[in-house]
């Protein structure tokens, strides 16, 4: 049904693609390696990020596969204690700093924000390229740490383990994250200035796509929180190399200080990972339903609210750390406050579907997957914010399940949704819709089979970061490993059919989904300078056919 309709539509508009306009697309504007590595075109930089973070994802996923295989038997089937510790540290470090944080903002934010606001490029194109080089510099340090044997501190680098006792390449790994942090800060500044200064005439704040709103909120966090992390990492290096007493009490330091500083960054970082994902879903759902998003302003402002209140809840990672119980109580309360608006966005997406005209395509299936998994992640997060429950399940597999529901079930699924939605725009080709849907369903099922058992494991008392465990936990671990196989397949499929589409896919029209938004008004793939003439925006956002007969706010 929808599929046939789609293809008809794309055939109608396919003709102009073979005119000379195509030759000027950003993809064809120079083919040498040099023209890519020295580009200042935000779209090409997005592709550079796409390629590099896909590589990092593959490395970190290999580490995950090794961990899951190891956990098939209680004694540890594959790795030594040291091997396992290094595997989960690398998995965590790379997934967090080299995949999740840069994924949606640096690939899709970079590609789409100028297009969505009617700009020719980012405010600082050369800084944008520099951010990528800095990011790759951090990546090289990570790979070096890996090649020289790895790190055994966990991605959280808790002191004094990391500053004094661990014997891996801690300084290299810390430097890697330190460098990647600078890339984040520069990207954040670029986003903020671009969104403030380069909006086309008529593109008021009330007409900004929600994708841009969420990236604005994300950029605020990047700029405000990341410096705290980078300074903290320097302090750990100083203690490790020069014995400065900052975190190790034997040297006169305070072991809890590190945790406060670390989570002051790393809790908001969760929102760096999930706000852009919410932005993606806020585009995908109206486009699939052909309806304005329900409660535009609520979703826009709640992004800012989440970004700002998100700075006040870091202590919920420290309920059993030895911080005062009064502090814990306040953090518990604030965490419940901030979690509610994020969970509520879910109701807005659901309400958007009511009386929509819903295309059940791959991109939408990924968006649905996001909503379901994010709901589970968010509500179990509330459970962790409740003090007495957290005391029991903190640092167990319950927490592992919870954050994978948010970060993998949420952010990665939305990333795949974005990939399917904007792929035709980015590369000018349609992919195979059927395979896309199969992959979306496989990811959803595989994800739940992998991670739902971990809630039960955690509740039953299985601590995290264990390479071996009491035999009674085995059944659930085996189930989880089986699910990971399915999930891995679900992730590998798009790699195949998307790459295949680059050569063999049908040419995509400018607007294959009949979506609103300025990015759909330019050819696919877009020309180097995006817009021939600066567009003048006169329409409300999400101006879909079904939105007309009601009170648009």
């Amino acid at each position, binding site marked *: 049904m929808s599929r046939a309709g789609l293809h008809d539509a794309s055939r109608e508009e396919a003709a102009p693609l073979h005119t000379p306009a195509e030759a000027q697309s950003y993809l064809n504007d120079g083919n040498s390696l040099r023209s890519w590595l020295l580009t200042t075109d935000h779209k090409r930089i997005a592709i550079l990020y796409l390629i590099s973070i896909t590589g990092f994802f593959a490395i970190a996923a290999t580490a995950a596969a090794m961990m899951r295989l190891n956990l098939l038997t209680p004694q540890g089937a594959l790795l030594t*204690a*040291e091997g396992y510790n290094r595997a989960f540290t690398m998995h965590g470090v790379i997934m967090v700093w080299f995949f999740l944080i840069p994924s949606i903002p640096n690939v899709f934010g970079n590609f789409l924000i100028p297009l969505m606001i009617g700009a020719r490029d980012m405010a600082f194109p050369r800084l944008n390229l520099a951010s990528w080089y800095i990011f790759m510099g951090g990546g090289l340090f990570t790979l070096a740490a890996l090649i020289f044997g790895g790190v055994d501190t966990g991605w959280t680098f808790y002191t004094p383990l990391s500053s004094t006792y661990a014997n891996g390449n801690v300084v290299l790994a810390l430097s890697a994250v330190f460098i990647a942090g600078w890339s984040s800060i520069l990207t954040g500044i670029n986003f903020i200035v671009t969104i403030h200064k380069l909006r086309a005439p008529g593109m008021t704040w009330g007409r900004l796509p929600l994708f841009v709103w969420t990236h604005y909120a994300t950029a605020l966090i990047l700029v405000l929180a990341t410096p705290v992390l980078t300074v903290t990492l320097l302090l750990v290096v100083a203690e490790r190399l020069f014995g400065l007493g900052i975190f190790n009490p034997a040297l006169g330091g305070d072991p809890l200080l590190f945790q406060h500083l670390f989570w002051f960054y790393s809790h908001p970082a969760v929102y760096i990972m999930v706000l852009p994902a919410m932005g993606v879903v806020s585009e995908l759902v109206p486009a699939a339903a052909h*309806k304005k998003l329900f409660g535009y302003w609520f979703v826009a402002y709640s992004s800012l609210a989440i970004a700002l209140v998100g700075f006040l809840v870091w202590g919920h990672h420290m309920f059993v750390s030895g911080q005062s119980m009064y502090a814990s109580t306040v953090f518990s309360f604030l965490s419940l406050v901030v979690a509610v608006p994020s969970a509520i966005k879910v109701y807005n997406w659901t309400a958007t579907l009511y009386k929509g005209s819903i295309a059940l395509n791959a991109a939408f299936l990924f968006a649905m997957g996001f909503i379901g998994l994010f709901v589970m992640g968010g509500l179990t997060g509330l459970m962790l914010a409740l003090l007495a429950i957290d005391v029991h399940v903190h640092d167990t597999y319950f927490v592992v399940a919870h954050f994978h529901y948010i970060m993998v079930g949420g952010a990665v699924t939305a990333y795949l949704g974005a990939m399917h939605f904007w792929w035709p725009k980015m590369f000018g080709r349609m992919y195979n819709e059927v395979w896309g849907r199969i992959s979306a369903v496989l990811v959803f099922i595989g994800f739940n089979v992998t991670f739902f058992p971990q809630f039960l494991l955690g509740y039953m008392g299985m601590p995290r970061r264990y390479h071996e465990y009491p035999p009674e936990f085995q059944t659930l671990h085996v189930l989880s490993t089986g699910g990971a196989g399915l999930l891995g397949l679900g992730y590998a499929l798009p790699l195949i059919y998307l790459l295949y589409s680059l050569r063999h896919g049908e040419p995509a029209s400018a607007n294959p989904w009949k979506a609103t938004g300025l990015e759909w008004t330019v050819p696919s793939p877009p020309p180097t300078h995006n817009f021939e003439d600066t567009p003048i925006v006169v329409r409300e956002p999400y101006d879909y056919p079904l939105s007309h007969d009601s009170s648009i706010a």
Partner: protein
Amino acid sequence: MLNLFGLSLPQASAHAQHVDMLIGAFSLLILFLAGPVIVLIFAFAIRYRRGKDVNRDHAPNRNVWLEVSWTIIPFLLILGFFVVSAKMFFSIHEPPADAMPISVVAKQWMWKFQHPQGQSEINTLHVPIGQPVKLTMTSQDVIHSLYVPALRLKQDVLPGRYTELWFTATRPGTYHLFCSQFCGLDHATMGGSVVAMEPGAYGSWLSTQASGGSLATAGATLYRKLGCGACHAGDGTTRAPSLNGLYGSRVTLEGGRQIVADDQYLRDALLDPNAQVTAGYKPIMPTYRGLIGEEQVMQLAAYIRAMKTVPGEHP
């Protein structure tokens, strides 16, 4: 006692039962909040799929009352849970006065427990049921965390600081004890068990264990060996304050601040003496850092605790 896939999680205390009830109730709330979303997404996706001929007139895209109500109602429900769970959290941080003190030292990678009468054990902790037990814990190296799932309790164990955990086991049995804060190479094997016993059985178990004398006796020996009495003997009119009756009393420091002389204070006084100088005395006490380990600190503290005669206002 709970069973899932052949896994069992015993409830070894009243607190454990309460935590299970809280988790069960919150799981119901999750169903109540998430159920409609999941059902409606599927229902809408099918009913309103593109190409299907249904009534789509007056599709709403805004409704303030609806939005406010689905913001406020879940929040109020959750607030109820916050209050209950915060109360439970306070109760697990307030040990009863008659709790049996056990000292715990964690190190990469073992747990060392010491009973009040001096018996010590590694990685296994025997406790009597029905009797509140208070663990005073510290670490010799990195951060560890003592976790007993059957009690639904855990607490990080920090170097340079004491943390506490208390519980009353109510059901005899042998329960897992884990380290739950990643602490290096053998983190996964840094565990053991908690053995909860009938008081009589605990008593006879204790009597079969070798004891190097009670903690306080060991502390007294150390006190003599280290020559603490050279300054602290007497009524406190000389070079150093008297330790008699010190434990639990309020001490006035140089500068007027008052502090309760608890285990943490005694530890700091031994290892970092000049940070908290008692009002009226010179900062002349040497540090014992490096000379004595965490276990000896605990023995000395036990001895000073035993010198407790008249608690109250103290110079």
